[in-house]
């Protein structure tokens, strides 16, 4: 049962990824991206990471993809991209590089590494959200606070970048939404 589910979700994830890369229209790419992200969330559920599955769907599959679609709509780039390639050698070379990458990672993963002992201190005990929250607010409290600073910087940077250049120009309401 789990095996069948695994292969169905794996097909969803990889098919969605191929759709992102191969579809000529950016809007279709964004929708294929949703399929991949929801498949990843299903993988998280199968691996007992319920909190991350929920966060994945809320943050990635909804917020980030909506942001992508917003920008596509705002810029009007949803026309079909010409499949003719101005640099003819690049695509074959890219595919060869991808194949080399697969072989390289598979080769590296085939070794037996020295690490790999089970954790003694950070065991996954109790409910998933409980153990993640305990680690997040004790061991990883300092990085957690730094991400808050990062978020403020990102929001300010997005607003500054998205407003019209030029002194005293009014900020468009639509471009302010992009940064939110």
């Amino acid at each position, binding site marked *: 049962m789990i095996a069948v589910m695994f292969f169905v979700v794996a097909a969803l994830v990889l098919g969605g990824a191929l759709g992102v890369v191969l579809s000529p229209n950016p809007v279709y790419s964004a929708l294929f991206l949703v399929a991949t992200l929801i498949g990843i969330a299903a993988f998280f559920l199968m691996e007992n990471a319920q909190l991350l599955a929920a*966060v994945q769907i809320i943050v990635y599959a909804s917020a980030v993809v909506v942001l992508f679609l917003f920008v596509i709509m705002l810029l009007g780039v949803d026309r079909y991209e010409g499949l003719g390639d101005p640099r003819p050698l690049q695509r074959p070379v890219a595919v060869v590089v991808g194949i080399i990458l697969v072989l390289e990672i598979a080769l590296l993963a085939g070794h037996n590494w020295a690490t790999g002992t089970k954790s003694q201190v950070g065991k996954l005990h109790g409910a998933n959200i409980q153990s993640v929250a305990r*680690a997040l607010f004790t061991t990883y409290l300092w990085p957690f606070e730094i991400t808050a600073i*990062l978020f403020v910087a990102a929001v300010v940077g*997005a607003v500054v970048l998205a407003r019209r250049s030029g002194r005293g120009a009014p900020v468009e309401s639509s471009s302010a939404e992009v940064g939110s």
Partner: protein
Amino acid sequence: MTITGNYYLIVALLLFTIGATGLLIRRNVLVMFMCIELMLNAVNLTFVTFAKMLDDVGGQVIVFFTLVVAAAEVAVGLAIIVAIFRRRRGATADDIDLLRG
């Protein structure tokens, strides 16, 4: 058959490679950005798989931070794309060559 962690790692490997190859193939800046998201998700999947294999919650916490940083990256990256598109109407990465000598 039982699904071990290695199956998840193989899916993550394929997902990462599709994302990396797509980043090299596509010329539309937005689609290149989506390919980066694919690669990030592949790495997240390996983190969660290792968290389960090694029975350590640290892997899941790292994925949490990755999600946060990815969200910030999307906000800033899309703002940069919007700023570039305002200046010139080109839709491909080849048109952005101001630094060319």
